[in-house]
């Protein structure tokens, strides 16, 4: 994999321009001198267009030369000593195509948001987070080593949570954002754990071992058990990021953000980031049948669950989100089966289509009225196939499950959140008791006090 100089420059420009935009807008925010809307919009569209053009050109050059996968190395970043972080991108046609698509979609959303959020108090904050997200997506798409992948993964996660809490004067978006972020942290922890294990087992953090085109080389240094654990951790990371079961419950909560951010995150790009990672890690999955089975099972279960749930949603964004999740589940099944090209084409098409649906969601009633005016009647309702082939009892059961979104929130609360909080509070009381044991107070603390007496 010889680095190609023009390709390296194009990729650098492609990734660098959104990063510079992020630094510029973020720096202005830190010193409390946000740029005027006009400038922000101009910089954002200029940056996205440049990025998209550079990455598209890189894709054309790569396709023309047809030399396969390139590892583009930009040297060690953090230290001149052994260890530390190297800036490396692993580029092939698929990764470049996904990166170019990300930049193009970000450009469209940026242009849309400029009007949609005009004179909104969080206008500047929105564009800072959008720039952070695009930088993160491009890093995820092109990452050549674990560190670069993780930087992108974290950028996507944090910007997503902060955009869910965009309307921060309301309580619901903020508490939902925390919930979303907590699932993302599970994803981050799983991804980093996989990276730690990979580095421990194979002695490298280069993703060419996992993502490399030469399938025989992908598992050279990985034994069966280690490869299985790494693959399973990757699937957990993907499942949490792409809202696969059992992590699907955060998706409707994430709809609290502004519509353009919902479109770019949960309609087109962020929700597919997990699928893309899985697609890149396909050579590893091929060596681990258990992981493929798990991925396929999760994808199928998610597709069915989301397909049923989307039918009972009462708001358009949640309905679209579950519809998107149905397709994401199917894409994961395709990857598990080994239809990589089909999965990638499906991913790209779905990302574009769902983006359009999300962006037009605020106008859905207007569009419907227009359609009624045009045909002179109400459009005939679609669907109803599932209802026709199921009994009343099954329908009622499915309706209840769909209405409660699979009871996923309450199950996770009961199995994970509540025990964790109970244990942590008990330990807090233990700490107080330790102080009391050293210096007694008039009101001694007991470890077994009830929850009501917690802070």
């Amino acid at each position, binding site marked *: 994999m010889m680095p190609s100089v023009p390709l390296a420059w194009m990729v650098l420009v492609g990734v660098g321009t959104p990063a510079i935009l992020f630094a510029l807008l973020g720096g202005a925010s830190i010193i409390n001198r946000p740029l005027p809307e006009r400038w922000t919009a101009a910089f954002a569209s200029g940056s996205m267009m440049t990025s998209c053009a550079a990455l598209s050109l890189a894709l054309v050059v790569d396709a023309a030369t047809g030399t396969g996968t390139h590892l583009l190395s930009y040297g060690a970043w953090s230290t*001149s*000593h052994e260890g530390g*972080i190297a800036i490396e991108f692993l580029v092939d046609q698929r990764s470049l195509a996904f990166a170019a698509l990300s930049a193009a979609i970000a450009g469209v959303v940026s242009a849309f948001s400029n009007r949609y959020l005009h004179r909104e108090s969080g206008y500047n904050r929105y564009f800072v987070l959008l720039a952070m997200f695009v930088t993160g997506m491009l890093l995820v798409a092109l990452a050549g080593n674990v560190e670069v992948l993780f*930087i992108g993964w974290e950028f996507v996660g944090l910007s997503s949570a902060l955009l869910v809490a965009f309307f921060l004067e309301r309580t619901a978006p903020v508490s939902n954002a925390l919930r979303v972020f907590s699932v993302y942290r599970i994803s981050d*922890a799983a991804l980093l*754990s996989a990276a730690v294990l990979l580095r421990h087992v194979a002695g490298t953090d280069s993703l060419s071992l996992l993502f490399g085109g030469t399938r025989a080389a992908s598992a050279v240094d990985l034994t069966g058990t280690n490869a299985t654990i790494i693959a399973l951790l990757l699937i957990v990371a993907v499942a949490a990021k792409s809202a696969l079961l059992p992590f699907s419950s955060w998706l409707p909560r994430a709809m609290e953000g502004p519509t353009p951010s919902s479109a770019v995150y949960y309609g087109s790009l962020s929700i597919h980031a997990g699928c893309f990672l899985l697609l890149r890690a396909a050579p590893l999955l091929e060596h681990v049948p258990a992981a493929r089975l798990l991925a396929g099972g999760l994808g199928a279960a998610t597709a069915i669950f989301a397909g049923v749930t989307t039918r009972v949603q009462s708001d358009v964004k949640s309905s679209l989100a579950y519809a998107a999740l149905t397709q994401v589940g199917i894409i994961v099944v395709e990857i598990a089966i080994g239809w990589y090209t089909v999965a990638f084409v499906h991913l790209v098409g779905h990302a574009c289509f769902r983006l359009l649906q999300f962006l037009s969601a605020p106008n859905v009633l207007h569009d419907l009225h227009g359609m009624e005016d045009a045909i002179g009647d109400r459009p005939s309702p679609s669907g109803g196939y599932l209802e026709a082939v199921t009994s009343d009892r099954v329908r009622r059961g499915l309706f209840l499950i769909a209405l409660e979104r699979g009871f996923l929130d309450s199950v996770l609360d009961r199995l994970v959140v509540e025990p964790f909080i109970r244990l942590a509070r008990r*330990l807090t009381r233990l700490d107080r008791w330790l*102080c009391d044991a050293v*210096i007694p107070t008039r009101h001694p603390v007991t470890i077994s006090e009830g929850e009501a007496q917690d802070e």
Partner: protein
Amino acid sequence: MSDAWLWLVGLVALPALVIGASFLHVDVERLRRLAVASAVSMLLAALIVAASPRLHVFSIRSSAFSWAPGGEAVIRIDTLSAVLLPFAAGLWLLTVAVTPRAALDRGGLRRTALATLITLGSFLTESAVVLLLLSVASVWTFLSALSDPAHQYQRRIVAAYLGFSTLLFTVGVALLIRPGAHDSTVERAAMWLIVIAALVRKGIVPFHAWVPEVFDHGRLGPAILFSAPQVGAYMTVVLIVPRASPDMLRVIAVLALGTSVYGAALALVQTSARRACGYLFMSQSALVMAGLDCTSVTALAGGLLVWLSAGLAFAGLARCVLVLEARRGRLGLATYHGGYERMPVLAISFLCMGLACTGFPGTLGFVGEELLVDGAIDAFPVMGFAVVLASALTGLAVLRMYFSLFCGRPDPLAHSGVRFELTRREAWTFGALVLALIGFGIAPRPLVDSRFAASDNILGLRQLRILARETRPALERAVTIRAGSPDGARRSVSAPSQ
């Protein structure tokens, strides 16, 4: 008189000047201005010292407190301490620049300068006795800050825990410096005593209960100033790391990693912002101790880097809470307080410093944690998983605090006429700290390379001691053989290599 000596005198004179001025009848606000000017000057001077390699070879050795051949460096500037000097100055500047006016008094400014002087002195010595004396002085300063009637219980808690720590440290140092203590059971006992003393001071589980209590119900400002420089970590680097066995270091690392996860998990469920800060501090400071496990040069360099990033980021985070409390009173985390729109700089600073604590990419903490995990992964993979878990939990805890303190319901005091905006001095200080944390996160090389150099020196010293310990019995045997045999001179030459 060398250049380094002059620089040192200058560094020490600045806090001393503020201490002296505090005894005069100077207006408190004017005294604060003097303290800010002195802290800025000290920071600039310390940065010059840190950036000048020719000043890093300064040392004044003495045999007054040690029986070791050649004595020990009572005052020295080396690769380790050179970067710690601006760190101490930065913490002082942060303290005096953003302390709310209501909490400002002459005694507080004096104590702050004194604490900085003590921290500076600690970072400049490798003498166990001098470190002990400075440790006693710092505990005394901290206790004097808790002398008001409202904090008597916390004062007693601190006195009990840190008194115990100081007692163990004293006995440990006394055993360590006695003649013939080297390479004996006495030295090992002394090391264990000093280790426990350092663990208590750093708030490592199971010696941690005083930390959240003092942060929550004690005085937050003095608690930050006492904790953030992490003199306990310095004690570990200077006294324990060169002498400790690998098992001893592993025990410290395991306890520290447990504390890191424990602190992060408990910070997540607290309903008091101050107590959450206490647990966050425990978690962060424990990561530094874990990095001192010496599994490799890279891991140690990572630990030293986390020391700087966690110290600065945590101090900034806790100061944000203090600044917010000055405007709103005591803050709980069970409700949303709102107010982002009125204090965007404070909110962004809080978030950035919190993210630096979690090792978020683009901040200095990320580089430190990355090196820590990278260096320890072969010899001690558990560290990698523990750091990942602690980082995930810390991130959640920080975001929860951010949402609770700055988001949610509209500010009920929005139209009350209360001034919420930061003063220019506060805004500049927080902005500069955030830019430093992000700037060194984006361009970390100079700092990372300096930590590698320090790490090399520390491990080199440790290797020398291990080598000396291994070869000493052979040398002694050679001397014995030489004394008892006619051809002893020839045989003694080959003895060390046996």
